[in-house]
């Protein structure tokens, strides 16, 4: 009897897993027919510059997340593979006058906000006003300065923007001069519903309105729920006019509390499917995720974000300015002395040492200019030619972290090698006054992010505050200013390329600004779970971040 019980027990132990295995196989067969895009969820990083506590400022401040692209819409988008092609979005048609000064957009007749109210041209006007007068991240403000009356409105000498007119669904924008990047700017510019803000809206407190707790929008997805500060749930907007997004449900998960480490752990555990943020701009992080969880892959996108040393050519408030900064050979010597490859090595897999302000991956890069190589001897020769007397220079920077402290120490060493004594100082308090007014520095480490590589030369563009770096020397206008005006005005790709080459050559000859590195951006994603249009991986960071049509209809989930 005892033996029989033992045999039965052993048989059951052996059989039970098989029974379950059979069940699992059967369940697998059922699942094979399951459309995971309808039943599953794509988990994307929800990153907001101001945090995700108590407010959903997904557009106003959140600029490193896919979430705003899914919720909000723009007047137009650009095509991912050919950014000269325009994809209709909120506006289904538009006209540009022959002189390039008047843009007319017609907003779709049946387009409504998610609260059911119709989207009007007046909503766009309201949002333009918010961009010009609000506080926060206003990436488009620089471009909107070309709108007639924008400067007066910004300066509060006018109560409205004279160059913008709304008549029902018709929007007219009049510019002061032709601006070739206007359509590209409007591809990123997000309108909000005016009716959900008070009539006497205070743009200086724009982020404080209750609207941001549960924003109303008109994009391809609808905000189903938000649990601050943890996550937001987005579901496909079935009444959206565009192609039906492939994935029904997307969740934005915040890692504000745990930061990059927590998000990386979530990816290794398979709980976060897409992270595309500056926080992950390190190939070591990306490769570690892929190594720990082979379901994942990563891609580095070329981007027009770059770091440079701006040069002070005009003097400082304390009178200690180094007069050799006015000498082009002295500036060129500094450029050749800095170990830009060492700078790039601090951002593994994403940074490129620059010869010009244009990323070598940008089609506008002048390929006749060799990639940057540090040359100490050439730098010394240039110093000799400049008649340099050994007087010290001062370096200012405002990225307050250990890595940048180290990089500035490195720069001091690099300059010492060619015989320039230098000291570096981080500016923390009242940066505006320190950098733009007092200018008690000779070179200043800064960042720039523009719509294109050529626009990076905007740092020497007359009309911006960057004028203070360089003074109003006629030679600067001759070398940069007049070409930049044409860059702004032209829409002709061939002419833009010619101008890009001129600007890069002149920048090398002028020795200013001193470009250091270009910053590519990393995207880590769950390759086994999420399918998308492969054109993504060849696009630029700017393309997949807000500017271009994301082709949501191609998105698919292979797993739940």
């Amino acid at each position, binding site marked *: 009897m005892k033996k029989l019980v033992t045999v039965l027990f052993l048989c059951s132990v052996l059989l039970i897993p098989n029974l379950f295995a059979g069940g699992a196989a059967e369940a697998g067969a059922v699942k094979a027919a399951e459309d995971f895009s309808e039943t599953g969820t794509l988990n994307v990083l929800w990153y907001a510059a101001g945090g995700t*506590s*108590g407010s959903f400022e997904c557009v106003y401040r959140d600029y490193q997340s896919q979430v705003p692209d899914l919720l909000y819409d723009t007047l137009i988008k650009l095509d991912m593979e050919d950014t000269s092609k325009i994809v209709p979005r909120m506006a289904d048609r538009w006209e540009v006058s022959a002189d390039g000064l008047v843009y007319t957009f017609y907003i779709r007749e049946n387009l409504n906000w998610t609260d059911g109210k119709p989207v009007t041209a007046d909503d766009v006007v309201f949002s333009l006003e918010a961009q010009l007068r609000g506080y926060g991240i206003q990436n488009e*403000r620089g471009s909107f300065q070309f709108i007639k009356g924008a400067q007066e409105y910004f300066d509060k000498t006018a109560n409205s923007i004279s160059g913008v007119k709304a008549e029902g669904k018709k929007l007219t924008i009049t510019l002061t001069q032709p601006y070739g990047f206007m359509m590209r700017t409007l591809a990123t510019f997000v309108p909000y519903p005016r009716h959900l803000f008070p009539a006497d809206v205070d743009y*200086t407190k724009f982020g404080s309105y209750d609207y941001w707790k549960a924003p109303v929008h008109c994009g391809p997805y609808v905000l189903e729920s938000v649990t601050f500060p943890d996550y937001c749930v987005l579901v496909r907007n079935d009444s959206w006019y565009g192609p039906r997004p492939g994935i029904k449900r997307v969740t934005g998960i915040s890692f504000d*509390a*745990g930061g990059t480490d927590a998000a990386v*752990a979530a990816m290794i555990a398979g709980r976060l499917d897409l992270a595309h943020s500056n926080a992950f701009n390190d190939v070591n992080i990306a490769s570690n995720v892929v190594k720990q969880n082979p379901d994942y892959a990563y891609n580095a996108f070329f981007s027009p974000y770059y770091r440079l040393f701006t040069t002070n050519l005009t003097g400082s408030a304390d009178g200690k300015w180094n007069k050799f900064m006015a000498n082009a050979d002295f500036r060129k010597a500094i450029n050749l002395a800095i170990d830009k490859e060492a700078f790039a090595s601090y951002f593994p897999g994403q940074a490129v040492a620059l010869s010009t302000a244009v990323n070598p991956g940008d089609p506008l890069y002048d390929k006749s200019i060799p990639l940057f190589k540090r040359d100490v001897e050439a730098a010394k020769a240039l110093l000799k030619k400049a008649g340099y007397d050994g007087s010290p220079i001062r370096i200012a920077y405002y990225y307050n972290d250990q890595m940048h402290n180290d990089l500035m120490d490195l720069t001091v060493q690099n300059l010492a090698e060619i015989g320039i004594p230098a000291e570096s100082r981080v500016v*923390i308090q009242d940066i505006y006054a320190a950098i*733009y007014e007092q200018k008690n520095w000779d070179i200043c480490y800064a960042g720039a992010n523009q719509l294109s590589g050529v626009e990076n030369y905007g740092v020497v563009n007359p009309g911006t*505050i960057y004028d203070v770096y360089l003074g109003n020397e006629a030679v600067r206008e001759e070398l940069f200013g007049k070409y930049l005006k044409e860059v702004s005005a032209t829409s002709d790709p061939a002419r833009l390329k010619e101008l890009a080459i001129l600007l890069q050559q002149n920048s090398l000859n002028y020795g200013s600004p001193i470009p250091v590195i270009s910053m590519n951006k990393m995207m880590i994603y769950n390759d086994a779970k999420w399918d998308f249009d492969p054109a993504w991986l060849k696009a630029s960071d700017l393309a997949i971040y807000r500017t271009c049509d994301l082709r949501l209809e191609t998105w698919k989930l292979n797993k739940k």
Partner: protein
Amino acid sequence: MLKYFFRRLLSFIPKILIITILIFIGLEFVPGDPISYLIPPEQMAFMTEETIANMRENLGLNDPAYIRYFKWLGNILKGDMGYSLINGVKISDIIWTRLPATIELTALGFAVATILGLLFGFISALKRNTPIDYSLTALGMVGVSIPEFFFGLSAIVVFGLTFRWLPPGGRMTPGQPGFFQRIPYLVMPVLVIGISYTATLMRYTRGSMLDTMNKDYVKAARSKGLSETRVNLVHSFRNAIIPVMIIIVNRIPILIAGTVVIESVFNYPGMGKLILESISGSDMPVVMIATFFIALAVLIASFLVDLLSALLDPRIRFGKM
């Protein structure tokens, strides 16, 4: 006793005022500028001096420190906690999204650690000088001497990433905010936050139990023929726990302080992490309020210690100690 209670309660007011003044003075010395955090320096290039000045004025940054302090205090008394400088959100909204998370984490950590600490201490005393006692004592030493963040990271690597039994961080699965749905997210942080507390409590309980077990009344109970269970639980443990109670309550402030590290390690969005984020962003109004709440929690815990001490030892409330 009532008089003692109100006297201790009234002492809160000067203590809170002193704490807020100290926090405010401390924050004045923290380098950084909220404007620089609000607007990237590159974006400043497209602004005007006047705009920056208006912004400072609107945010009240141009007032002298003492004026800002009294404005802040006046608003608090009116129930207005103000707005975050960084994202413009009402601080009360931020606090109400973060405070429940920290209360939940601390309360569960406290409960679990108290139960485990008392239980292990009790067992260790009963089984003194046996392998069980030695093992528990050794574990207690480990719990006290190894920092919590190390336990946290180890737990994430083992249970979150290697075996994937538990989520490596966060507070909830999207769309599943219920308490029972959140339990997998609480297991690791609760146990980790309670480790050092458990170990300390275990050691005190063991010591107190051994002390009590040698008392005459325990020997008398045993000699009357009472069962060992009754002697140990009713006569020994019940008396041994009285001094331990003070330790239990006394450790609450340390437990609250510990959440700052644990919340960071486990991506747990609570008050501790809020303080760290706000300090790094020079978001002083949020730092002030968040620190104020933490200080208030510590004061309440100290108040409980005082009350408990007074209840257990009448000499205290009559000022005889």
